[in-house]
């Protein structure tokens, strides 16, 4: 017998696993519900799914536990994250109600639904025995063999239909994601001409951290006059506002040039053209 089966057969171990993983699963579900950012929701949902996998294993469903980790947390959640990265990470929910009073109505409905489910099904099961899968699991040598026996005998038709469903889904995804090209693909020459027609910077953008004291990607490059070039920082970082302040970098530079006695911000520069004084 392996470790999971011994753990499942002892009642105390199963109780401890249930209370830890069940609580974590509920926390993950609530976290998914209340996170403003979709990426956080996805990670909370992954946490819930891993905990459910542990619960499956403690319920003597070793195969399903592994499939849960591989298919759900491995494939489905990563697909979610992939689409989130394409659709836009910084998209967060608006709190404006389109239907008036929807929030309170949904809270009421969800609470009523939970009470109904727990009251009806939960109370209906009060006093039932836990049961054991030992005989069913050991009939063909293990959990995987038992499930395989069922899939290929009693549920073989459903299994075949499932393959048709998977092919249809794959085809549907290909058709939906396919984009028909209505205009001919622009050549490199045409793209170059287009770029110079626009009234923007035609060359390469400045690399992050050029001439700055730090070449991290969130540090803006310094222009010849010492100002920060915001364009050198990637768009998502800019929209999230996680730029490294350039002042720290400047301060070190100023101290190096002017000596330790002067702090940045106390230096007054005089503009040679207008005579205006600017403070850095």
């Amino acid at each position, binding site marked *: 017998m392996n470790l999971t089966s011994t753990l499942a057969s002892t*009642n105390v171990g*199963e*109780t401890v696993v*249930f209370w830890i993983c*069940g609580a974590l699963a*509920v926390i993950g*579900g*609530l976290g*998914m*519900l209340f996170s403003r950012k*979709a990426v956080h929701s996805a990670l909370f*949902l992954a946490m*819930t799914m891993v905990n*459910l996998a542990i*619960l*499956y294993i403690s*319920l003597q*469903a070793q*195969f*399903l536990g592994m499939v849960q980790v591989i*298919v*759900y947390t491995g494939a*489905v959640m990563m*697909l979610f994250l992939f*689409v*989130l990265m394409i659709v*836009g990470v910084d998209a967060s*929910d*608006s709190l404006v109600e*389109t239907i008036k009073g929807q*929030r309170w109505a*949904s*809270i009421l*409905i*969800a609470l009523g639904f*939970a009470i109904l*489910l*727990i009251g009806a099904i*939960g109370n209906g099961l009060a006093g*039932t*025995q*836990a*049961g054991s*899968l030992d*005989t*069913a699991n050991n009939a063909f040598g293990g959990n995987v063999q*038992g*499930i395989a026996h*069922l*899939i290929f005998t*009693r*549920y073989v038709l*459903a299994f075949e239909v*499932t393959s048709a*469903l*998977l092919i249809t*889904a794959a085809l549907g*995804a290909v058709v*939906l*994601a396919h984009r028909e090209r209505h205009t001919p693909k622009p050549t490199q020459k045409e793209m170059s001409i287009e770029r110079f027609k626009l009234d923007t910077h035609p060359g390469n953008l400045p690399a992050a951290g050029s001439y700055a004291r730090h070449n991290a990607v969130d540090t803006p490059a310094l222009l010849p006059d010492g100002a920060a070039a915001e364009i050198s920082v990637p768009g998502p970082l800019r929209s999230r506002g996680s730029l490294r302040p350039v002042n720290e970098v400047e301060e070190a530079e100023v101290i190096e040039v002017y000596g330790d006695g002067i702090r940045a911000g106390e230096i007054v520069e005089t503009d040679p053209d207008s005579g205006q004084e600017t403070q850095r």
Partner: protein
Amino acid sequence: MNPQSYIVLSAILFSIGAFGVLIRRNAIVVFMCIELMLNASNLAFVTFAKMHGNLDGQVIAFFVMVVAAAEVVVGLAIIMTIFRTRRAGSVDEPNLLKY
């Protein structure tokens, strides 16, 4: 461990998912809530399999997982298409048929 506790946990998770579908606006988060509901139903299936001492419930849960995987592929492709044509990530924005 009494199957009742597992079923109550499953009911709680299902209700959280249903509440999320009702209250969230972001299409992808709504989709994640649907996944949570499917997972909660799977937990109920696995619990019932253990309660009755046969593996049928686990096979059904396995089929639910397969259908959920296919559903995610098609659903996310639809969300991507809507986003590409209308730049809308919210379930409230595609309202072209309304006017």
